[in-house]
């Protein structure tokens, strides 16, 4: 039972970590905390759903259309929230709160009346047994995707010229602009990338759970917590934090049978983690 509990917790934890990565990607590149990242992912999942069930597009075409839509949505969000009147990261982050409410309301208005929906099975179904516990292919895909995204974020920001430009713009916009860095293009690329990642997360969650405007609710807060434990910078720490939170929730559910206790423990982990991280900030070079 212990190994099964760990397997279940790890699987859940990587999902939290994946949500965290959608936040970290944008914070690392633009300094903006996008509160609406998960809701945007949900909206993209609905677009994929419409493409598959209403317009009956082939799976690959529907996915491609959705990814293109998500990129365009990212561009539209950037133009509508940032470019229209640039501001400091805090104000931009608060604007995304407004975006969260707008996206959520629009999704409810269009699809809420008949939700929840079953997302079409576009990913392979099947399980792998680990110590008597069956892990679905989609759950393994979540783990793999989370690791790939974390690596990609690291490679992008540390090893590529684009990443260097992103960090330069994030660090000092005016100086970067003065030195000829195409600030708007770089920012736009960051927002589009972040939205595409959020889109993929949305489709995975719809596959794992179900499709509804509130489908992100069970995992959103833990995702934010994992991201914050990673200081909104470290993908690696965020993934580890997500896994820790997942194991705690799984284990407390199995062994203590009290959902309240699970939430209290998660809250304590978050609090202690933030305090410890705060004390060590500045002493450790972020990765």
């Amino acid at each position, binding site marked *: 039972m212990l190994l099964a509990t760990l397997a279940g917790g790890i699987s859940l934890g990587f999902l939290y970590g994946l949500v965290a990565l959608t936040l970290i990607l944008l914070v690392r590149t633009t300094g903006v905390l996008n509160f609406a990242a998960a809701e945007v992912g949900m909206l993209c999942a609905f677009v994929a759903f419409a493409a598959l069930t209403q317009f009956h597009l082939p799976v690959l075409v529907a996915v491609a259309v959705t990814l293109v839509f998500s990129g365009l949505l990212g561009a539209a969000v950037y133009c509508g929230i940032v470019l229209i009147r640039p501001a400091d990261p805090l104000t931009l982050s608060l*604007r995304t709160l*407004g975006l969260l409410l707008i996206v*959520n*309301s629009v999704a409810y208005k269009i699809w809420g009346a008949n939700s929840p929906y079953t997302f079409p099975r576009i990913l392979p179904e099947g399980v792998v047994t680990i110590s008597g516990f069956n892990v679905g292919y989609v759950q393994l895909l979540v783990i793999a995707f989370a690791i790939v995204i974390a690596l990609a974020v690291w490679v992008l920001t540390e090893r590529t010229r684009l990443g260097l430009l992103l960090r330069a713009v994030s660090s000092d916009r005016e100086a970067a602009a003065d030195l000829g860095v195409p600030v708007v293009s770089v920012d736009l690329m960051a927002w589009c990338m972040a939205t595409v990642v959020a889109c993929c997360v949305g489709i995975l969650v719809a596959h794992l759970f179900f499709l509804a405007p509130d489908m992100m609710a069970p995992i959103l*807060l833990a995702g934010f*917590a994992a991201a914050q434990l990673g200081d909104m910078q470290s993908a690696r720490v965020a993934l580890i934090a997500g896994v820790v939170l997942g194991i705690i929730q799984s284990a407390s559910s199995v062994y203590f049978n009290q959902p*309240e206790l699970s939430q209290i423990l998660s809250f304590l982990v978050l609090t202690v983690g*933030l305090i410890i991280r705060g004390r060590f900030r500045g002493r450790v070079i972020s990765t």
Partner: protein
Amino acid sequence: MTARETPSRFFRPPTALPVMMHPVLGVVILTVCLGLAPFALADYQLTLVATGAAYSVAVLGVAAGFATIGMLALTQPAMMLIGAYVALYAIEALGLSFVPAALLAVLAGLLVALPLGWITCRLDRFSFAVLGFAFTYLVSMLMSSNLLVGVTGGELGKPFPSANVFGMVLHDFTNYVALAVCVVLAYLLAPIIFRSTMGRFLIVMRQDDVLAKSVGIDTNLHRILLTAIVSAYGAFSGVLVGLASGFVAPPHFDVALSISLLAMALVGGTRYLLGAAAGTLILLVLPAMFNLTLIDRNLLVGVVLLACLIFVPEGLLSFDRLGRLVRRPPAPERTPAS
């Protein structure tokens, strides 16, 4: 914690404060509006105004926190819930009258906020915000569960009991009068608190935290105090919401309400005392009066919040034209002697 020192004798706190401006005018307008409402509005509309006024006290706390050091007080719904249920328990089980019950509720909010403030005073803004979300979610969940069902009624909530003030049982119009008096008092107290020395220190901390420390301001202590005061406003607001609406249910005081309260504070603006009331009127009272569905109300909050943060970042009450009409001439700038 650093040893507390008296501020340097060379330090002069700013004289013109960009928060809680025109408090007297604000309180007068608020009092007149609340006083005239019973004669101008139908019964149901008056209930909405009373409920909105109650929520505006929580928004005032959020606005004060944001205006001073940019705090994102997302714990406010949790404090409202704590305040409402402490007052409910005090009236129902302990048989207290309204005033001591309300004071007990505020004290409970303070007691919960102090350790929370101590934990969070070292955190950056976004960490505090995420912790605030988590705390609100946790409190709402705990109050909905079996643990406190005798007090809270669980997820279905409980009617707020009739209260009495000085032996008079409150209902209908006397209820409204008591609520209006409480709201006006809360608004009166805010500028007194935030235009005190503590308030001025908070402004300095917002401008430059290191500078504030260097002149001897205990920034951690002031952050803790601010958290406590904002939370006290939240707890008091919870009591008033129970009184106004007659019902308290934990699921309503959730993360979504955190965002709504912050939105009301930002939309109304934090420069003027009445900003909180204005934001609550625009985003809570008027949509209910016009019978918008809840989804449309959420959409309205999102659109108005986004539009304000883009076009009027200091809030709707900070239109330049309006500001010029009522603002005193700015203090002359101090330029270094050439």
